[in-house]
């Protein structure tokens, strides 16, 4: 019934948005250097959007607040950097290895973290990610320490427009995969754990095990995002693992809306856009980014507690699907 028409409308909206996004770089490339800069920005928006979506699998759908999601972003990033720069692996297998390496890291870290809940879970994820950050920072010979790894090769045909399109294609595929996961029986199980962990046990769900699986899945998507950013920048650096990188997708999910699939990606793009507009306005204004961000969050928490998506849904009188 209405659910069907709603999902049909979502599909049409999605196709239109993707088509518009596919045309965007060709339009932007007409605008010289400014256009090129914005192609780079929108590519990074897609990547950060993917990163935010990946966190939201555990945050919005799983109800697990992680402060250390950058660990998996970083593992993906360094996997691509090390494989391409040091092992001479080409881009496609390197990018394919990123989510695998991140999944392995998430399996190890998650195995410990899911034993805790709430704030303790959050703190442990933070601790592990900081540990990883320190290892990468200190292990100069392998990771380049705080210099990072630079000069990652780029295939000739991957000009900014093509790389943007590659990221868009990967983003869309990942979005559809995540959509499939949250709508699956597994997705319902994860939601039931978020809603009532105790009751979930008493319907026969091995709660820890499912939280662990979900953590691994989220980590692997984050790893892919990290790999894509490394290839975009042609370097990997310790910032990718920093705790502030873990905060980004949390803020994006808050702003965009963590109870919808697309919300976190929209939030990520909006926050990046705000920051850049501020920067373009006056370089010094970046200094007050924290204040602007604080104000944005204040507005969100006060007027749109379920984020932009939730806000628009309420404006249109639609219930959360």
């Amino acid at each position, binding site marked *: 019934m209405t659910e069907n028409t709603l999902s049909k409308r979502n599909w049409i909206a999605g196709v239109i948005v993707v088509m518009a996004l596919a045309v965007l770089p060709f339009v932007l490339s007409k605008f010289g250097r400014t256009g090129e800069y914005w192609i780079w920005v929108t590519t990074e928006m897609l990547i950060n959007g993917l990163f935010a979506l990946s966190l939201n699998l555990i945050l919005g759908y799983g109800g697990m607040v992680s402060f250390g999601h950058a660990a998996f972003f970083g593992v993906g990033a360094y996997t691509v950097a090390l494989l391409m720069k040091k092992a001479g692996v080409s881009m496609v297998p390197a990018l394919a290895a990123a989510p695998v390496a991140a999944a392995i890291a998430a399996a190890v870290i998650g195995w410990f973290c899911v034993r805790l809940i709430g704030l303790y879970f959050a703190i442990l994820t933070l601790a592990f990610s900081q540990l990883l950050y320190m290892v990468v920072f200190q292990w100069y010979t392998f990771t380049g320490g705080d210099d990072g790894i630079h000069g990652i090769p780029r295939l000739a045909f991957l000009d900014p427009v093509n790389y943007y399109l590659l990221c868009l294609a990967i983003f869309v595929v990942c979005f559809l995969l995540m959509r499939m*996961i949250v709508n699956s*029986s*597994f997705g319902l199980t994860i939601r039931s754990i978020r809603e009532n962990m*105790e009751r979930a*046990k008493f319907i026969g*769900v091995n709660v820890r095990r499912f939280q662990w*699986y979900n953590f691994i899945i989220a980590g692997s998507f984050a790893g892919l995002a990290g790999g894509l950013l490394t290839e975009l920048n042609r370097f990997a650096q310790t910032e990718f693992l920093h705790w502030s990188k873990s905060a980004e997708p949390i803020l994006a999910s808050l702003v965009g809306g963590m109870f919808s699939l697309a919300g976190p990606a929209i939030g990520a793009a909006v926050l990046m856009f705000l920051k850049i507009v501020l920067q373009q306005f006056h370089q010094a204004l970046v200094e007050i980014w924290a204040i602007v961000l604080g104000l944005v969050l204040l507005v969100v928490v006060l007027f749109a507690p379920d984020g932009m998506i939730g806000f628009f849904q309420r404006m249109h009188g639609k219930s959360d699907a």
Partner: protein
Amino acid sequence: MAEKILRIENLSKSFEGTQVFNNISFVIEKGELSSIIGPNGAGKTTLFNLITGYHIPDQGRVIFKGQDIAGIQPHRIVRLGIARAFQRTNIFPKMTVLENVVAAVISRQRRNLNLVSPFRNNKAAEERAYEILENVELADMAHRQSGILAHGNQKRLDIAVALALDPELLLLDEPTAGMSPEERKHTVQLVKRLWETLHITMVFIEHDMDIVFGISQKVRVLCYRTILAEGTPAEISANEQVIEAYLGEEV
């Protein structure tokens, strides 16, 4: 002699040094509809918590179909065939009534690990869920958000979620708690009907004597840290000790 589905043997439990009960033993026969009564804080819920793996007993065994299940994790005990509904309603509040039950059916089908097909396409699960919702008279509310239902409906949904697990032993912790007298009567009849149609073993905890004596085949009185008495409703209502310890103060 009838088959014994559950044997409680020398079970003891204390919290921070205070003993809830000491060395209790009893046996539940397969297919029986029995009840447990006792004053507030007697340890009735704790007994269910021990049977379902929520707590680990200090001592003693809980033997379900010949296997000692004391201390096994709750989700494993569910898989063995014991389900429960809770004293304080315990549902998935932001999900619809149907989704609550479907989540349990899917767990019972062991489909939780299916990452690919939408749970809404699982027609078998949906049909089963509707069947159960019919049984507890909630089918017409299937698409409502469960957390905003009236209290009585939430209590019945809690029972529906437990039923969706196809238990052999169903434990109902005060299924009529917080209901109006009318609703109580209705729910009791519903419990009775479920028992008659589903042929499962049921144990319920209840405060209301009329309810207990009206539908139970067997009544167990939990009081003074032990099973004070056990028998048919007629035997219990004639039991001197019970009258003194429990019924007396109620009247």
